């Protein structure tokens, strides 16, 4: 192979490599029931320290991805807060992860809707990408072993929680 052919080959390889890198880096994560819940330590929203889903190992955790600018999140937040208080003593926690938002607006939202369950904050959409999220709100039920038991890409209400989440956490399904 002549030098010129080698240079042309290397140039084509570099262009294909760059295109492949661009496509792969934009790819969204695919998650499924039974997979380990995507997890990493995140800062506590409005407070010191960090938290993670792993900190709730041994309990059921309903992970809620939300943002203050999201309209359906306004109806959902009080429902989740009631659910957290009702099922907290039965081994179920609700964990909010604020995404694609700024912390001042997020804290204002929590005050306005009187949300008291624990909250973590993901800068930008890093956590949304990890959950393969397409928007907010989205909800993920994580079992006591840290595996996904339910994936719900949309808002939840009281009826949904009773029909789809409670049977799982009470072992009826």
């Amino acid at each position, binding site marked *: 192979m002549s030098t010129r052919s080698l240079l042309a080959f290397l140039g084509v390889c570099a262009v294909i490599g760059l295109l492949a890198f661009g496509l792969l880096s934009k790819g969204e994560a695919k998650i499924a029931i039974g997979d380990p819940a995507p997890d990493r330590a995140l800062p506590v929203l409005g407070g010191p320290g960090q938290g993670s889903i792993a900190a709730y190992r041994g309990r059921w955790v309903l992970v809620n991805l939300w943002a203050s600018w999201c309209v359906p999140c306004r109806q959902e937040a009080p429902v989740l807060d009631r659910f957290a208080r009702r099922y907290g003593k039965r081994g179920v926690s609700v964990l909010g992860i604020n995404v*694609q*938002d*700024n912390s001042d*607006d997020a804290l204002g939202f929590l005050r306005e809707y009187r949300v008291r369950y624990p909250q973590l904050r993901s*800068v930008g*959409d890093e956590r949304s990408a990890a959950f393969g999220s397409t928007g907010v709100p989205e909800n993920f039920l994580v079992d006591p072993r840290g595996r996904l038991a339910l994936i719900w890409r949309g808002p939840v209400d009281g009826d949904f929680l009773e029909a789809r989440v409670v049977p799982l956490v009470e072992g009826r399904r």
Partner: protein
Amino acid sequence: MSQLGGFISLCGINPPSRWLAIAMLALSLAPGVAVAATPRTSVNDVEDEVMCPICGTLLELAESPQAQRERALVKRLIAEGRTKSEIKDVLVAQYGRAVLALPSGSGFDLSAYLVPAIAFALAVVGLGVGVSRWRRASRPPPGDDAQSKGPRGDDAERLKADLARYDL
């Protein structure tokens, strides 16, 4: 300051009032100096350099609820007197690096600046080499004149014979 005092005495202000006048003048100039030192930025100046990360467009083109919140944050930071650079730092801390419309000048982002520059340099070199080759190819070889472009060898002999036959 002594020059200022001299100027005030020239204006006919009594010595006891002089230092009061100097102090008042200094106070009246101070805000102007501060404004000149930190030029105030504007929403327009910032929103054409940052993205609405969820919308995937420049903030100035976005009208989604998330963009409106981001714009409100920019306005709040401007009201606090932050510079454009400080505002961008806050936006990166809140929304991540995806909020910047321009790639940073380090790491992999550097390739966004380097690749076009290298491609341009290679194109210039390639063009230079091509032009020089083309000019060399179109130039007659050394020692080659118009006569030597005629027929050679057998052809030349045949031509000579033909010309002799016509007795020109």
